[in-house]
């Protein structure tokens, strides 16, 4: 068990593009362009990845076992032979969750010191 924990910690901290990508894949398999669009939409355009960055991180995350290429094509009508879909692995899910928890603890700490306020309560 400890070895698994260590293997999750080993990936932390994640760079924002990696974390965003893992989060984008949390609710279902997506192809590259869909990942980019999702990230841009969720961050209101603050985070815009380019193709080079995206596929370099896809390559690394695949090699690390955080994501895999999925063989299922969710929507055959829209499918294109050039598109590959990516899926979050259980390890990827744990790593993403661990990173979020890490960030949360930092946010908690900041709140305790009144560095930031809870949104909506101010």
């Amino acid at each position: 068990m400890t070895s698994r924990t260590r293997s999750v910690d080993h990936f932390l901290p994640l760079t924002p593009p990696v974390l965003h990508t893992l989060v984008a894949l949390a609710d279902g398999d997506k192809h590259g362009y869909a990942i980019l669009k999702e990230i841009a939409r969720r961050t209101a355009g603050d985070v815009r990845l380019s193709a080079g960055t995206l596929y370099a991180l896809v390559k690394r995350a695949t090699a690390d076992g955080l994501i895999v290429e999925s063989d299922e094509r969710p929507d055959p009508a829209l499918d294109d032979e050039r598109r590959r879909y990516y899926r979050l692995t259980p390890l990827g899910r744990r790593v993403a969750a661990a990173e979020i928890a890490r960030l949360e603890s930092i946010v908690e700490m900041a709140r305790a010191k009144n560095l930031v306020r809870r949104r909506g309560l101010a």
Partner: protein
Amino acid sequence: MPGRPPSRTDRLFRALLRVFPFDFRADYGREMEQTFRDQRHEVRQEGSMAALARLWFETTRDVFTMAPREHLAIFQQDVGYALRTLRRTPVFAAAAILTLAIGVSAVVAVFTIVNAFMLRPLPVDRPAELMSLSTRDRHAAVPHGLSFADLQDYRSEGAVFTDLLGYAPRPAVLDAGRGVERVTLGMVTDNYFSLLGVQPALGRLIHPEEGRARGDVPVLVLAHDYWRSQFGGDPEVVGRSARLNGRQFTIIGVTPLSFKGTDALIRVSGYVPLWMIDDLMYTSGTSILERRDAHQLTVLGRLKPGVSLAQARAALQITSADLARQHPSTNKDVTLLVVPETHARPNPGIGPFFRVIAIGMAALAILLLLITSANVVNLLLARAAGRGREIALRSALGARRGRLARQLVTESLALALMGSAVAVPVVVLAMRGLEQFFAQMTSIANFRPDLSLDLRVLGATLGVAIVSGIVSGLAPALYAVRADVNALLKTGGRGTPGESRGGLRGALVVAQVALSLTLLVIGGLFARSLARADDIDLGFQPEGVLLASTDPGMQGYDPAQRLAFYRNVRDRVVALPGVELAAWISWPPFAIVYDTTNLYPEDQLPVADGETPQAFTAQISPEYFAAARVPLVEGRAFDDRDDADGAPVAIVNQTLARQFWPGRTAIGRRLRIESDTLDVVGVVRDGKYNFVWEAPSGMVFRPLAQDIPSAATIAIRTTRPPSDMSSVVRDTIRRVQPDVATYDVRTMRDYLDSGNAFAIFRLGALVTGLFGGLGVLLASIGLYGMIAYHVSQRTQEFGVRMALGAGAADIIRAVLMRGGCVALIGVVMGVLLAGGLAQLLRTFLLDVSPFDPLTYAAVAVLLILISLLASFVPARRATTVDPLAALRAD
């Protein structure tokens, strides 16, 4: 969308993606194109050209950020793989690294020397503008410097040069309050530092316009190195006074650390204004600065911006022609030479000669690097053949061939870099040794070239390593790419590429064996000469003699004072316990600076001008022949009668006596030397005076008291080991006259070993022995690589033969035969080559025949044994082949 032909933008993006590594492109290229197409589509729908432009800009920037990272990642991976592979084959790795280290060392060593003498810009303002000016007259073979008067005339030309500066390195005696020391000074024109743009580290430097006449401004600027070593970097030194050649000077400043003077060979300890040259040299009569025939100065000029070298030459030719008209006696038939400063190192006289030697050395070094690279190719090919199956397997498992090739090149690159890592410290040590060698030659001048490795050399090393790594790795990489996977898997990895080059490979090894044999033979002959050196008849007995040199003339002592000094020192030294005899000589045998004179016997008419006989000449005190053990053949030695009041006398050697009075006695004859007529009172045995290999030459000795030299060396025959006496002798001389510096205090044996006498044999034996040894190492690695490859190609054949009943001994014999044959051809060629070369060097061989059978036989046997050993290792491996496995591989 599928099947749609790519648009022009698609093709543009695809071209952009080519900066990614091949594998990455193959894995994700199509998806990236699709993603980018989608992004463009989306932006286009918004209809904003600015947004489209931003997308292109950001995507392009992203590609150029990410692609290098991908390349680096692959490189790291390949280096890791290469290191693991090399660790598994340590013998191969060591052989390859060593081989490359030898090749790279040779190139780096030569480049370091070339850098110091031809490339490294002076650490001054805009060094590229500096030009060297020198003159050549019709009678002299090499260019020489300018007189101060000429320099002033060229300075007044003014159109092409901002200004011209002149300097002259001169020995001097410095006394800064802690005893006297012999140093080398730079005597510089007042504008020296300002024109170069050198700023002081401390105090101030010599100002332009500082001093306008002889004897003006007795100021001294210390060189940074000297200030550090002799004054411990004491900042309080500025303003202190010091004595130079007995004259009072004020220390005004220290040069910066980076500035080591403008002479590539001689390192000066300080700088004084040129106006002081007459005072320091105790010139009587016409100032050196006024004499147009005193070509004392090395001259540099700074070109005006925008003026070309050709324009400068043309303008100065006019001045030169004017000078020839105005001063025909000194300037007629004199050509002015203007070349970039870097072309005139270490001085204009030997600069051009040096360049030719440097190019030759560079060519040899590159040749050596090519040979070592070829050896590494052999090693890599031998291993690639052995790894054929691994590579084929990886290839079959999906590794792309380009990727495999890239990885093999990375591996040889790693080898080359490790080879360089070995080479650099070796070269640093070798260059230090060379600097030492220069420094120990003599104290006449401080010879100390700066042979340090700078960024330029390290950059060049890296370049050489990368090129040789890629070149060596290319052949096996191509082998891996071209090899047919199926065929390789079937034959078990013994492909055929490279087999057609077997002949070339053999020739390469033959050449290496031949060259290393040549070098070893020459080295051996030098070593044998050195061994004979003890037995050679020098005409005197060097053992048990200590030498110490002094230069009272430099302190301005007149002849009477000098004679008193010499006599005083001699009397006190002889009274020291452990001293048997002591005597002065104006220059000891094999000195770098020596005297010759024109002379003829009084009873024979002087022959036409230019053909007057010449002989060496030296002044000695009466006990010299006894102290040096020079046998008197006839007549008498000098004694106390032979002083200024006595009749002028001379003692000649046998060669001179034979030359002038063949078959008759020389005693009682008279010699004319310049305006003097000397009675010959004795004849001594011949000796060697300048070089060990010189033909017997005439020598005339005169009594010190009748012709008092400015500088002289005392030869002390001791009853104790002479080296034990050096400090007491130094002290004794200092007590006689504290302001006269004593230098080059050393035993006669040391002096002979490091000076003109035997240094060349030691250096020759060392250099050729070293390179010969390296050559043998290279040749044996080359032979090993060749035989290993040969064996790897024939594993199956050996298996079959063993299956058919051949024993291990038969296989080993077959392989050894091949290696032995190659070595034998190399040995025969090497013997012929060495014989030819030794013939050319026969002058330098002492009492050793250039065909000395012992040397040749020893080296040949050594090389054949090493060759057989190099072949034996792979031969033994051939016998470990399991016949069944070898057969099954089919």
